[in-house]
Structures are given as C-alpha cells and as structure tokens.
C-alpha cells in the first residue's frame, strides 16, 4: 500500500487518476481506517488530503460559507458564525461518532462514504449545499443531493475529489434543524433522520422550505411535498400533519437490524415535524 500526502488538490486528483489499483481518499479516516482494520478494504493507494490548504479552512464570504473537505466536526462546532447561520448543519455534523471521532471526522467524508444514514447529509441537502469537485479534467460544482447515487456509491468519477462544501448566503428570518432517531443517546447510527431548512416572510409565514430525510431510502430523500405542506403556514397542526404524511409517503426503507419499515416510516414523519418546529423557532417564528 502506498501513502501520499500532496499539498494541492490537483496533484491529489492526478495521483488518484493514475492509480491502477484500489485508491482511496483519506480525510479524517474515521470510516476508511476502520474499514481497513476490519479487512473490508485493502487499498493500493491512500491519498491523504489534509495537507492541502484549501481543505482545512472554513471561509465566510458574501456568497455564504465554504467548508474545506478536511475540516473536522469539532472545528465546525467551534466556529461561532457558522453555528449561528447554519445551526442545523453544525448539529448534524456534530452528531457523527464520539467526541474523539469529532476531532477527525469531516462532512465531505461523511458524504463520500455514501451511507444512507449519514448524519450530515440530510442537513446539507436541506441547506441546498454544493460540493466543489476537483478532478483530472478540472473543477465542477455538484449539488450535494447529486453526489450520492446509492449505498456506498457516488457520482464522482475516477480521480475526482471533493475539495470543499459550500452553504449558500443566509437570508434574514431563516433557520434549520436536524434530528435523528437512535436507540441510545449517543455513539449510534441514525435509524431515520430529518433535516429541515426554512425562511419566513415578514408575517412569520413559511416562505420557502426544504425537507430532507435520511436512512429511509437508498439515498437521502429531498421531499418537496413535505416542504409544500408547510409553505405559507405558521406550522399549525394541520400543516404539520400534512408534512408528516408527505414524509411518510416519501419513505421506502428496509427492514434490518436497526429498524423496521413501519418504524422508520412513522418516526421519519415525527422527526420532520419536530425538526420543522425547531427550524421555525430559529428563524424567529412564533
């Protein structure tokens, strides 16, 4: 196995593109190293992207936030501006693993690991986040919901790396929230989850919204019907019930050791309702 730690994304992409064997990108390593130790993967090449400056920074600009692919969950949690603008995204990223894992894990890694239960992804999809992808043929921008194509699979081509993830500029009276269901209180994987991001108008009615569900389908589901159910409302009981029903209708989960189809479907609706209420409050709604 070869280990490389280049200092530019371009070189990293070239290394990955050139490799004939099995090549993996290493950011925090909280998925890759575990899988290597368990003998699930045996890489021929590991490209560590942590020495690439662009992957290490959280940058606030007029167009929003850019979060480097190697920025840890803990660093996001310590960034006050980011936390204030996108509390739902940050709380989702901070739910990954334990305190120790938080020091290493990254949102880009969480996304590229392509688990249907990834905690940060529903929040990112709800936030309309975009990934900056660098490959041998140059750069492109991909909506986060278009990165994962199925469990363990992404749309990234050979040699392509996510360099950073961007969150859009935050307009006034906006809020987001993420909730997951786990049987324990921590150190667990989402049985189902929901991310909600919304903006209110001057009267406190929901002007726009995005609702995304995790662990209820092969990929994170963006539920437009659920968003429609609350747009133009103050989240009265009726609209919340419609939101839950739309979420349930969008679920196509599996029965497995972590939960049943019925449970995942019903609780996804419950979580979306609860997350919507939190996002509404964060947006200043009453």
């Amino acid at each position, binding site marked *: 196995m070869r280990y490389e730690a280049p200092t530019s994304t371009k070189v990293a992409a070239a290394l990955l593109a050139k490799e004939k064997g099995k090549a993996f990108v290493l950011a925090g390593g909280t998925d890759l190293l575990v899988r290597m130790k368990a003998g699930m993967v045996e890489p021929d090449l590991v490209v560590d992207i942590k020495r690439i400056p662009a992957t290490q920074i959280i940058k606030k600009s007029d167009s929003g936030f850019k979060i480097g692919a190697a920025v840890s969950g803990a660093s996001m949690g310590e960034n006050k501006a980011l936390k204030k603008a996108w509390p739902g995204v940050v709380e989702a990223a901070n739910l990954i693993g334990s305190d120790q894992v938080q020091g290493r894990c990254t949102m880009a890694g969480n996304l590229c690991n392509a688990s249907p239960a990834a905690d940060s992804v529903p929040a990112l999809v709800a936030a309309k986040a975009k990934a900056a992808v660098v490959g041998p043929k140059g750069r492109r921008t991909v909506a986060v919901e278009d990165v994962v194509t199925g469990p363990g699979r992404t749309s990234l081509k050979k040699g392509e790396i996510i360099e950073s993830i961007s969150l859009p500029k935050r307009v006034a009276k906006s809020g987001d929230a993420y909730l997951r269901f786990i*049987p*324990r*209180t*921590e150190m*667990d994987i989402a049985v189902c989850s929901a991310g909600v991001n919304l903006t209110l108008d001057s009267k406190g009615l929901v002007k726009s919204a995005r609702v995304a569900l995790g662990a209820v389908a092969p990929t994170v589901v963006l539920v437009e019907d659920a968003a429609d159910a609350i747009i133009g409302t103050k989240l009265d009981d009726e609209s919340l019930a419609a939101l839950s029903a739309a979420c349930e209708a969008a679920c196509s989960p599996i029965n497995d050791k*972590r939960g049943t189809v019925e*449970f995942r479907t*019903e609780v996804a609706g419950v979580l979306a309702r609860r997350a919507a209420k939190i996002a509404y409050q964060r947006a200043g709604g009453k």
Partner: protein
Amino acid sequence: MAETAPDTSFTNQDFKIIGTRPPRPDGVDKVTGRAKYGADAFAAGQLTALILRSPHAHAKILSIDTKRAEKLKGVKAVVTCEDLPDLTGGNRGMLDILENCMARGRALYDGHAVAAVAAIDAETAKKALKLIKVKYEVLPHVTDVDEAMKKKAPIIQPHIRTTGVDPKPKKASNVAARSQFGHGDIEAGFAAADVIVEESYKTEQTHQGYIEPHACLASVGPDGQGELWVTTQGHFVFRNTCAALLGMEVAKLKVTSSEIGGGFGGKTHVWMEPVALALSRKANRPVKLTMSREEVFRASGPTSSTSIDIKIGATRDGRICAASAELRYQGGAFPGIWGMLGAMTTWACYDLENCQSVAFDVLVNRPKSAAYRAPSAPMAAFAVESTIDLVAAKLGMDPVDFRILNAAKEGTRASYGPTYGPIGIGPTLEAVKNHPHMKAPLGPNQGRGMACGFWFNFGGQTCTDINVGVDGTVSLTVGTMDVGGSRASLSLIAAEELGIPYERVKCNVADTASLGHNDMTEGSRGTFSSGMATIFAARDVVKVLRNRAAAMWEIDVDDVAWEDGQAVAKGIAHSNLSPLSLADIARKSPTTGGPIAGHNETVADGAGVSFASHICDVEVDPETGATKVIRYTVVQDAGKAIHPDYVEGQFQGAAAQGIGWALNEEYIYGEDGRLQNPGFLDYRIPVCSDLPFIDTEILEIPNPGHPYGVRGVGETSIVPPLAAIGNAVSNAAGVRLNHVPMSPPRILKAINAAK
C-alpha cells in the same frame, strides 16, 4: 493429628475497619494504564495466532486443506481438530468443551472455530487463514428456541436423548433435559383462586459485554511443561480443563490470571485457550491469541434466549394460591443447565403453598451459552414479576403490598427445595415501600415500576496464604481473581483480624503453581469464600504470633493473648512485660523460628441467598417508543458490606447491565442463521448518557453461615431490572411488553396497536 474445621457461623463481632471505604490496591495501576490485562503479556519469539471460523450456522465439514497455509513463509503452525485428539475418555461434557473450541467434522454455529494458525505476525496469519480451504455441506439450521423444540426441527446433536423424562426417549431431539421443581397441589391451588393470570414471554439473547476481549499467551515446551497467561475468572479451573484436554499433567501447566476487564460469567469457560496451547506445542514457540470483538460475540458464551409461560392464581385477600411456569432456554449448540437454573429461581422470592416450574434445556445453532451474572434468573424474573404486577392490578392491590403479603421469609420452603434461614426479601420490600423514590412525583409520559430478584450465591473450594514480612507488613495471597474490588475487601478482613492498618496489607492473586486449588470467581463467591479463608488464615497467623511472643518473653503460650493487634502477657506475674505488636514480633522472627505464615484451605459452605428489590422511573416518548430511564434505585441485602463502595459498585453495575438487556441489547440472527450484529455499534450496551445515577441502599441481614455474616453481592441486582423496567413502561405508556428487549420499534408497535 487432624484439626477440626473452624466454626464458620456468624458471631456478631464488633468491627474496627470492616465497613470503611479505603482506595483499592489495584486502582492506581488501572487508571494509569499500568495494569496488565490478557493481551498485555509478551514473550520472546512469540507468534500471533488467528482462528478460522465457520460462516455457516450448521454444516458438515467435508475437508480442511491446510497445505497452502502451512507453506506460506512465516507460518509456524496450523491446527485443526486433528491436533486436539479426544483424550476425554468418554466424558461427554469435556468433549463438548473441546468440540466447542475446535469443530470436529461439523460446524454447529456461525463463528464455530474450524482451524487456527500461528505466524510471525498478524499480517502473515491473516494471509494464511485465507489459504485454508474448507469444504462444507450446509445443513438446515435453527436458531429460535421454540422452533428448535418442534418435531421437524433440524437435529443439532444426534446423540442427545432428553433427560428427566420417563421413559427415556429413543429418538434424538434438541431438548437436552427436562427438569421440574416445586411442591404442593397445583390443580387444587388454581381451583381455589379468585383471579388467574396467564401470560407468555420471550427474551432475546444477550452478551455479558465485557470490554476486554478474550486473550492469552500460551507456551508449551518439548518437555511437556507449559505456561498460560490469560484473562479468566478462574485460572485453577482453566488449568485443570486445559491440562485434561491437551493430555498435560496438572502440575506442569502453570496458569496466571491477568487483570480482568470484566467477565460476568463469560470468562468462566475456556473458548480458545486450548487452541493457543496446541498451536504453541506444535510450533514450539510462545503463542499470543486474542479475540476480536466480532469473535467475542460470535464465539464466546452469551446467555440464553428464552420463551416462558407463567400462570398465577390468587385469592381475593391477596394471597397467591397457585403458581406454575414452563421455561424454555436455549443453551446454544451444546447441552446446558440454564433452563434448570431458571426453573430453580422462578418462584424463589415467594412463600407459596402450591408452586411448580418445569424447564426445558434446548439446543440451537448458536454459540454455547455461558453463565451471565445470576445466570438464567433475570429472564424468569421478568416473566414472574411482570405477571405479579398484573395479578396485583386485577386484585386492585398496590404491587408492593401484594409482594410483601406473599414474600418468602425465614422458615419458608423455597420452591427449589431448601427451607430459608433469615433472608432479605421482606426487608428489601419494606425499604422500597418507605423509600422517598416511591413518593416522588412523575411527569407526563413517565411511569414507575418495581420488581424483585433472587440469587443463590456460592461458596466452594478456597485456599489462602498469609505471610508476614520482617517490617510488619502482611502479604495476603488468594486464588480467587479479583473482578470487582475483592483485593480491597480481603485486605480489610486481614487487617481487621490481625489488628493492623489496611495500608499494611498487600493482597496478591497467586498463579496456579503458588497456591492450592481455588474455584472460579463466580456465584458471588470471591469475597464470601476467600474472605472466610482469610479470616482463618489470619487466625492461624495469630497462633504463630502468640507462640513467638511467648518465646521472646520466655513464658507459656497459654499466658499470651492477642488483643487489638498485639500480644499481651496475661496475669499479674507478667505485668512487667509490655505488649508486643505484630511488627515487634515480625522483626525478631529470624531468630524466634523463622518466617511467620498462616494458611487456610476450605470448602466454603453456607453461602447465604440474596434478594434485591428495585424501583425504576421511565419516560416513554409516545411518538417514537424511545424509553429513557430517569431514576433508578437498588435495594439489596449484602449480609455484611465489607467495603461498601464495591458493594454499591456491584449493585450499580448489575442494574446497568439489566437496563441494557431490558431496553436494547439482543443477538439478531438473519434467515441464514448468521449473527447480524457482532459489534458494539449494533449490539447496544448502554453508554453513560443512557443511564441515570443509580441510587443504592445496602441492607445487612447477616448470613448465619459466615463469621462476619457476608453474603455474595455481585449478581442479584441484574435480576429485577427487566421486570422493573417492563412494569414502569406499562405504567408510563399503557402498554405491556412481553418481549425483551423493549426496543423502540417494539414499544411503538404496541402503542399503535393499543390505539
């Protein structure tokens, strides 16, 4: 001349330091990482071993080809069952142990060991495992206890004929044994009942979940002598078992127990140690063998899953007039005693005229069950204590009052046979009734439950030495390894008896070459039995100290008394002699007869039974079925708490394990008979934030069979939590769960069904 055995009965003496809470002697090493556990031993030239395991739940092994693995550079030995020939001389129980360590022509569960390699490093060993070719013929399998009892179920052990039935069956079945306990006339009892409640329950399989995986370092030389460093609850028993299985002489195999990172019964059995010894013998090199967490789940010994029917009848005045139970426990792929133990404990808390429990020990294609803290009692108690609450409700009685009215007491004939002496079930129930926790207000979606539990406790073979150093410090050498602070408790006992400060005693756990046989640290016997042996070894020391003082004073030993830790010359004739301390006498020992030592060997009978009653508050989220334990109180009889910190620690630890079992822990098998969740991610033991602070109350009802009144305390408190939580969930969410674990999907389903 043979001495008479010392009197072990309770004497109600006054204590100076028993009951205090000094720090444990192993504490600093443990918090600084200096303590040596099973995987922390290294030997020059040691090899790394790995085990190849069956991916099938049930299969015939047609062939094992190890040639390519043996030829791989760096591989020093490959073993299969061929290298572990049957030397058991027709002892089927021993052959079962051997076959569980290494499959013999058939794989009986997912994870069953098939072959093993020892190589110069882990990478080479891993490669070698891949080069071993095993041909299987997959057979139909069964993993559910009720399915395994059906007529058409695949037979797991063709030689098994159900014992305990008359006439003896001619055909093989998966029911290894039927056993029955109880007394009175059940039918007449139910005929007299005003109310009868009948319920059926299921509990899923759980694992002890010790944090330290099994690990050992084995070394066998060409001269037939060997050493084994191992994490175990009983190195003397491991020595005897390993020596017998490998054809070694007991005295030539020295076994040393490491510090232990939890055992809870799971480290009372050998799982892979004979394999490590066989590899070392073949390679002529020391061999280190450690299990991964996945291997621990798949191939050590979890506790049974069960299926239980309960029927209780009571009269309008609140007396139970009949109680019957049928219990079905699976023991994995080999016969066990787990159903029988469950049946013995079923009705142990109650004073019953007519009671019966019938148990079936059943084989399934799962790993061989092992003891888990009060083995088999929690499942039976879940079924009984849930039903007791239902009967109380039907009678319109308070569940605590109903239990008090029916509780066993001194003189009660226990359902499993004996008549109780002084016992703690009544006092624990009274303490629960009067506990502030019972009166605390509850919030929305919250409910309170309580339940009782029983455990036998055990004594057994014990051997202890005390050696006095020339500086007056004392070395206490015991053979029961320390799982929960027993070195501190035993040091307190030695210090109490000798009249010296606790800090002057150092307690060590001896290897098998340095002390006589000791049974396992199991059955809550460590502090009970080694405590007893320590008392008598210390009194043996006092005898020597008096003799030495007599020699120093040149007076008759009968004129020397031992009072408050010093030799005192009795009588006016000796009033000019100042008392001699232990240190004074020790200093002179080289010239008064040499080393000062005491010894005791015993079979510690008289272990007192133990009872606990628990109170628990839970909050159930009605929309997700998630349960949070918000308050928990343990009341248990300790007989006498030698070191209250470690008694409370046992209460809390047992309750924590019971809470995990009640809410989330379970072995999940797929249709293919393979374990789906062999890891701590999906086998969910509670994390710290899942538990409230567990409050404890120690009661002390002396055990008449121990000089200090000690009862074992380690196990009983894992018995009540399943039912206590079930009863609390029922009161919080209005649904009763008859299936453990009460995981969120099960609770939500029940809530929806009740709508």
